[in-house]
């Protein structure tokens, strides 16, 4: 037993910072007293922690969650490349049950934090779009799997790089993502072909858009279809972010600057 404790203390030795994922009050207080730099990564800052990174989605994939936390800490200037961080997080069920040591380097940096926080659109808008896409992926449209393409942010440019396939059902309307009624509307309209265009502040500008970006030089994994290709390409031509729900494999993918940033399985949420 002694060797196990030793191994654990070796694992956490000389860490530059501790990342606590959704900690409890007592756990936070115990670790703060210890003296190392503590970063709380949680959906809300319930503990009034000094250093706090907001978690927009409860990333089920632990790697994504840790990447998000590390990139958020880097963005706040708390850790630098070459630092070593220790993450306390939960893998099974509730409560922290895992200690993970990670070094901060370029391989960790995938832009998952930038996707939410440093996009043109507001973070809450991107989060709402993810929630709609995930819900759509879970339930489908009338039980059948459905695909959807949301282009978020930089709506003016996106509108100029696309054309309408039919009349825009959202014309002269003032609907914003995040209202419960809108989730139902988007679900109904998702059977339409084409993309949804959403502005920086979350206004749904248009549905039924046929995107016309230049697709040269867009490098996305092979096997993804036209929806993903046009979604990825429009993010390379504009400052928009594309959230794509695949009809064939049911995954939600996010593209920014023409690259695949995040892949989420809706069934795990």
């Amino acid at each position, binding site marked *: 037993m002694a060797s196990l404790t030793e191994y654990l203390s070796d694992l956490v030795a000389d860490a530059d910072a501790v990342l606590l994922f959704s900690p409890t009050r007592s756990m936070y207080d115990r670790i703060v007293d210890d003296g190392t730099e503590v970063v709380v990564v949680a959906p809300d800052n319930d503990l009034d922690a000094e250093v706090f990174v907001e978690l927009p989605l409860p990333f089920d994939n632990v790697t994504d969650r840790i990447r998000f936390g590390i990139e958020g800490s880097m963005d706040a200037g708390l850790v630098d490349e070459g630092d070593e961080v220790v993450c306390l997080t939960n893998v099974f069920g509730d409560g922290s049950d895992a200690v993970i040591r990670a070094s901060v380097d370029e391989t960790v940096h995938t832009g998952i934090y930038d996707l939410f926080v440093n996009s043109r659109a507001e973070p809450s808008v991107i989060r709402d779009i993810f929630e709609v896409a995930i819900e759509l992926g879970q339930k489908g449209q009338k039980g059948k799997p459905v695909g959807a393409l949301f282009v978020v942010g*930089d*709506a*003016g*440019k*996106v*509108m*100029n790089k696309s054309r309408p396939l039919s009349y825009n059902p959202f*014309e*002269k309307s*003032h609907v914003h993502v995040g209202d419960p009624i809108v989730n139902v509307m988007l679900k109904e309209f998702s059977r339409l072909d084409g993309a949804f265009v959403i*502005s*920086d*502040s979350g*206004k749904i*500008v248009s549905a039924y858009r046929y995107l016309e970006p230049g697709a040269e030089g867009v490098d996305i994994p092979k096997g993804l279809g036209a929806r993903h290709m046009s979604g990825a390409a429009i993010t390379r031509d504009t400052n928009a972010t594309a959230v794509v729900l695949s009809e064939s494999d049911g995954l939600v993918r996010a593209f920014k600057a023409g690259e695949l940033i995040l892949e989420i399985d809706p069934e795990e949420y």
Partner: protein
Amino acid sequence: MMPAVATGLTRIAARVPDRVWLALFVLIFGLLAAYVVGAINRRLLTRAGVPDVIEGTAFERTAREFNTSTVRILAKLSSYFIVAITFIVVLTVADIRYLEQFWAGLGAFLPRLFVAVLVLIVGIVVGDKTELLVAERLRGVKLPELGVLPPLVKYSVVYVAALIALGQVGVQTIALVVLLAAYAFALVVFAALATKDLVASAAAGVFLLLRQPYEIGDEVRVAGERGIVQEVDLFVTRIEADSEEHVVPNHSVFRDGIVLVRE
């Protein structure tokens, strides 16, 4: 022995005039009524949830320091009022004639004093409460300059309450009323000056949102700036040109007109 004492007492009792008995009766009844009204008031205020509402105000905290509470003070106040009235009635009934003028004046003055004290206490408590509410609202905005706002609101409420209380007691308050009017006038003028453009923008914004003369994605020229509309909200229109984003207030959009650019 005993019968002698009894007859003595009866004789003394007989000598006491009837009106003194009446006065004694009124006194006992008055004290009883004061106690009952005080207790009922306390219960009513507690039942109405007053203690929860005024929890945490400065007045309540001060009251707590003296081992009492606002509700108890209010209840006591009503008791004392009834006791005072009782004493006046008793003195009148007992026909004690000295200082009649003084008591008559006091009899008329007491209810007003009671109302004045009541208004003052309610004013202070409401002022405290509004200060707390405003401070709570502003907590999200971490701006130290806004710290002056909550006390300002509090003292405005207390000032008005004090004015009403003084008016009740009969103090000349015209100068204070003029001061209040000047203060309110200044407040309105400053608010109007400060929010003039915002209100104009919002009014224009309502029109722009309802009629949508231009939409997101249109190329327009507004107030000399040409670009693609990125966002229209209540106050501003965001127009993006190459590497520049213009945030144009809606009232200038409305004043200067819009040029829709078509190739």
